């Protein structure tokens, strides 16, 4: 297994095994040991309420990774639906759907999500949906482009001539052949989802305390940056490791798919 994939597997495993790995419960207050620098008892130190930072990073991984993966699933499913319909139907429907895609791409993603999150004050599942709905456009474009080139290929014409229905054409012949290109855009969506969740939580409109996420840990760390800088290091490092390993995996997929 390649290094980025291995790293990603470790991160996911650590998140899943958080209850076993965490030295303390993530919400356990210890007011006698607030704001302690990293030590053997608290390897990443403690925060302003005496909570163990390592435990919170591990539990935060569950939230951050889940939001990343699930929002990419929402983005992928809606992107495949929009791009699939546009690419298969063509004509006026295609034009309307692609203009809507352009419109969504012209709205800056993070500010739009910040407003939406501030208005709706979402729970984690709703956050997943919001981030997913802000990220379907790239996949839709990829799927549409793939379908339009595939549609006129011989094997599709052949299947159609042999009497394959619309659902069979799309499900059996068209989408599986677009899978590689789609998987690249999905990995990018996972990395983007992790970054967006952390940015939203960093601005206080994402995952709400006391539940830990890497972004809201950084939000809390920012106010005590000059006295307890270590609080800002671990959560950010984990965000970087996650997005880096996901993006490198995506880069490898893209080159495998004939990208450059």
């Amino acid at each position: 297994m390649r290094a980025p994939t291995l790293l990603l597997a470790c991160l996911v495993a650590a998140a899943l095994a958080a209850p076993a790995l965490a030295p303390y419960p993530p919400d356990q207050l210890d007011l006698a040991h607030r704001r302690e620098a990293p030590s053997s008892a608290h390897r990443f130190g403690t925060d302003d309420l005496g909570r163990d930072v390592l435990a919170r990073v591990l539990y935060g991984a569950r939230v951050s990774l889940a939001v990343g993966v699930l929002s990419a699933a929402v983005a992928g499913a809606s992107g495949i639906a929009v791009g699939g319909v546009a690419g298969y139907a063509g004509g006026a429907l295609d034009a309307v759907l692609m203009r809507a895609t352009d419109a969504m791409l012209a709205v800056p993603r993070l500010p739009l999500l910040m407003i939406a999150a501030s208005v709706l004050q979402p729970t984690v599942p709703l956050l997943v949906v919001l981030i997913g709905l802000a990220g379907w456009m790239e996949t839709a474009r990829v799927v549409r482009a793939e379908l339009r080139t595939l549609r006129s290929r011989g094997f599709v014409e052949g299947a159609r001539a042999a009497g394959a229905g619309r659902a069979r054409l799309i499900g059996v012949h068209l989408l599986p052949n677009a899978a590689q290109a789609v998987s690249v855009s999905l990995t990018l969506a996972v990395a983007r989802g992790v970054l967006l969740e952390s940015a939203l939580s960093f601005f206080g409109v994402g995952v709400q305390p006391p539940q830990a996420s890497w972004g809201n840990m950084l939000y809390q760390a920012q106010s005590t940056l000059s006295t307890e800088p270590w609080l800002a290091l671990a959560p950010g490092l984990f965000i970087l490791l996650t997005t880096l390993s996901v993006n490198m995996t995506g880069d490898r997929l893209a080159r495998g798919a004939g990208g450059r």
Partner: protein
Amino acid sequence: MLGFLARRLLQAVPLLLLISGLVFLLIHAAPGGPLAIYLSNPNVRPEDIERLRRALGLDRPLWQQYWSWLVAFAHGDWGYSFSDGRPVAIRIVERIPATLELVGVSIVTALALTVPTGVLAAVRRGGWFDRITTTGAIAGISLPAFWFGLVLQIVFAIGLHWLPSSGRTTPGWAGGSGGLADHAQHLLLPVTVLAVVQAAGWSRYLRGSMIETLAQPFVLAARARGIPGRDVILRHALRHAIGPVLAVVMVDAALLASGAVVTESVFAWPGLGSLFTEALARRDYSVLMALLMLTSTAIVLFNIVADAAHALVDPRVVEP
């Protein structure tokens, strides 16, 4: 060319209508809508709320409200800020210089990083420089900008005391001879964040575009005519390859020009991005809506400008 421009501008109209509708609906989905700020205030009586609702036209059908908002917006009447009662347009205009300064310096710096990196990586494709910069670029794209900013603050402002951690000037600094140096010191960290993140993406585009260009017959022909390798790369290939990259730069510039939201708020840079996060914290929806509309409009327009520039260089683009 004029027809091409007219067509693109016409296409932009429904696009902007669609965006404005989206933004409008979003704000109105807020509990209490634009009056949310008053609903939570115990000093405002229910009958006052009702009066305000009628005065602001919030009792009318949604499409009528949208229409009057749109007409007002198009006339530059962007309403008043909930937080300090001043016109939104004035609050936005006074923030523009700071943002232009930060973004202008960042874009120039990012381009200065992008061009040599992208060209050298493409020319020596697969070599050690290419491999290092490729990994570096992926790292740059993966970097959470706000955390990068915090780390720079920890190292250079809090740890080493070399640079100020935030703001645009030192408070109480009344200009003077050291003013420019003070300014530059404040710029250095936020510019680093923006330039590194942008250059990471742009250098990948330029590398790809250069690799494609270097394989084209006209490059081979230039080499065959005996033009020195450096001139072939810089005068012939780069001039051709940079076009698509500049289109990407234009669109990113439009996004940044309307506020590098994350970087500006981490470094308390008093530009449009900070205005956005301040408005967000106070649920100042009229400011948020205006900023989002301006950004989207800028992105749509810069896209058209980028297409037009591309069409000037390459007339094939104009064909519908």
